[in-house]
């Protein structure tokens, strides 16, 4: 029982982390809370669905297509909505409002275009079998989600900390004007980060859609609330923080449901959020925003 619940916690936590990594990256570099992030989650899943159903390809092709489509849409939306605001040095509240409006628009548009019925990937494309180890069972898609969460965080950290591109991204995050004076193309960096964030959101949508076998336009809406909790607990813009906080939240929810009462599942998650804001408003690792990304 406990072993299975721990596995459940890791899987759920990895799901949250996977979702939140792109969200927090977007915040860390660009300093905006982009609420359209939840939309890329569903967009990636739908693009992958189309790849498997329309083109008859397997999941190995669908996953990159989902990530690519979501990433490109993220770049388009960012340059359409936020570039102007950035140029005008609008306050953070303005970008929050603009992305909130855009989110409602995009959800309504997707619902009208794609319908609100739940879709599922064709059963044949992926053998979602489960492995048993003693009394513990874990599915192939669940292993994929855990793997992807760790892989994305590791890859992003390597990129941001260990490459010239990462150096440029960090420079833009720290001080866009100074970065521009050093000859760094700030606009390009913003597009690169938008693409990466959107692509991660899209890939997360594909994997989560595959795991729960349910894809619909509003699937990111519910995740956004958890995503918020994760990036705040982990520290805004902190990639490792997102991973740790995601896992923490997953464990907290699963263990509450298992050993206290499922009624308190949501309560625990948000108690964690409130406690973080109370005791460690900078997030678990408490570093200044500009140093994180």
């Amino acid at each position: 029982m406990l072993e299975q619940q721990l596995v459940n916690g890791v899987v759920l936590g990895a799901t949250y982390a996977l979702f939140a990594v792109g969200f927090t990256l977007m915040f860390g570099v660009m300093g905006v809370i982009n609420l359209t992030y939840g939309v890329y989650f569903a967009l990636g899943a739908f693009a992958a669905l189309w790849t498997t159903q329309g083109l008859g390809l397997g999941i190995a092709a669908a996953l990159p297509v989902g990530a690519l489509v979501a990433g490109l849409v993220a770049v388009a939306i960012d340059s359409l909505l936020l570039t102007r605001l950035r140029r005008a040095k609008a306050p953070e509240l303005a970008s929050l409002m603009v992305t909130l409006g855009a989110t409602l628009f995009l959800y309504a548009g997707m619902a009208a275009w794609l319908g609100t019925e739940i879709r599922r990937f064709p059963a044949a494309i992926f053998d979602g079998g489960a492995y048993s180890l003693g009394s513990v069972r874990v599915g192939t898609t669940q292993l994929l989600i855990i793997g992807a969460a760790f892989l994305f965080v590791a890859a992003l950290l390597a990129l941001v900390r260990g490459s010239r591109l990462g150096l440029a991204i960090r420079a833009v995050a720290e001080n866009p004007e100074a970065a521009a004076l050093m000859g760094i193309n700030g606009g390009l960096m913003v597009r690169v980060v938008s693409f990466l964030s959107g692509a991660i959101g899209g890939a997360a949508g594909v994997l989560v859609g595959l795991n729960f076998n349910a894809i619909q336009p509003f699937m990111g809406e519910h995740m956004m609330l958890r995503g918020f909790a994760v990036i705040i607990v982990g520290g805004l813009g902190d990639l490792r923080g997102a991973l740790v906080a995601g896992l923490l939240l997953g464990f907290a929810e699963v263990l509450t449901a298992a050993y206290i009462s499922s009624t308190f599942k949501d309560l625990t998650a948000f108690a964690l959020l409130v406690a973080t804001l109370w005791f460690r408003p900078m997030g678990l690792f408490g570093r200044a925003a500009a140093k994180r990304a």
Partner: protein
Amino acid sequence: MRSLMKGMTAAAMLLGAVAGAGAQDKSPVKLGAIEILTGPNSRYGVAIQRGFDLALAEINRNGGVLGGRPLALAYEDSAGAKEQALNAARKLIGRDKVPLILGPTLSNEMFAAGPVANERKVPIVGTSTTANGITAIGPYVFRTSLPEADVIPVTLRTAKEKFGVKRVAVMYGNDDAFTKSAYDVMKAGLEKLGIETLTTETFGSKDTDFSAQLTKIKGLNPDAIVLSALVEAASGIALQARQLGIDPKVFIIGGNGLNSPKLGEIAGAAADGTIVGSPWFVGKKDPANQAFVAAFREKYSGDSPDQFAAQAYDTLFIVAKAIDAAGAPDSEKIKDALIKVKHSGVMGPFSFSESRDPADTSGVVVLTMKGGKFQLLE
């Protein structure tokens, strides 16, 4: 003096009646309908709209109501939000002056819109609102959908008699009036039948992960899982239960929310064995039902009707009969006529009880899922 007054009133009424007949009023009788036409739950509202539209076409083809006036429907979208349902009711009553409102789709929404209609003395007829306490809102609130309090006990009794279910785990969505009220009925029904409840687990209606609750249930080894959920959550639960290795023999006993072909489409074989009670079934053999199913498929390019469409379809005929009996598109008269209507539709014999709920439960059928499709439990 008094008799003179009486005579004059009678004469005036007679005159009015003659004038009415003479003028041959052919203007449409417009009713309001509040349904979920957009958003995540629009599947229910759109099914209902299709049921209404099919019935509307048939009624108008046969001469409409009140001796030749066509019936018309003004749809308002509630999007599944009770605030929006409330505003829609206000708009239909205040601006469109409709004599009767159909809907809204969800019990949640009825608890918001119902009191407004009741206060303004406009009858409101729910076709899909099955929660407890709907018609207790007031004398102008009706429903044609069998409350779950009538359907669920039949399902539970069948599970006990046919499969010898003795120990169950209960799961329900605790943030939705519909799933919570079905849970209350289940709890009472289980106690009455002497079935032991090993644990009661809850979840949010938008949750996608149920592994913690199901792992706990697996450890308790129940005969069945009694589940009150909407179809999205129910599909997720069925899939994850099998993924966690809960024996396929541990079947799910569902409330009305599980009674949807979507369950089989999403969950596939994982949902096999699930049983639900239903006021209606697409495969019911009687000629009225078969004609309805055929007409529906023809109108909607092969799509099959569901329970929501069937309930809506019957309801419009019931309402049309009440308008005819009332003799005028007048809210008060329609209200008084509705309670007396007798109708035999695709759901079976129908009449209202004194509390404005359906009086007859003889149409209830128990269904079981096999190969992703519901069929009558033999």
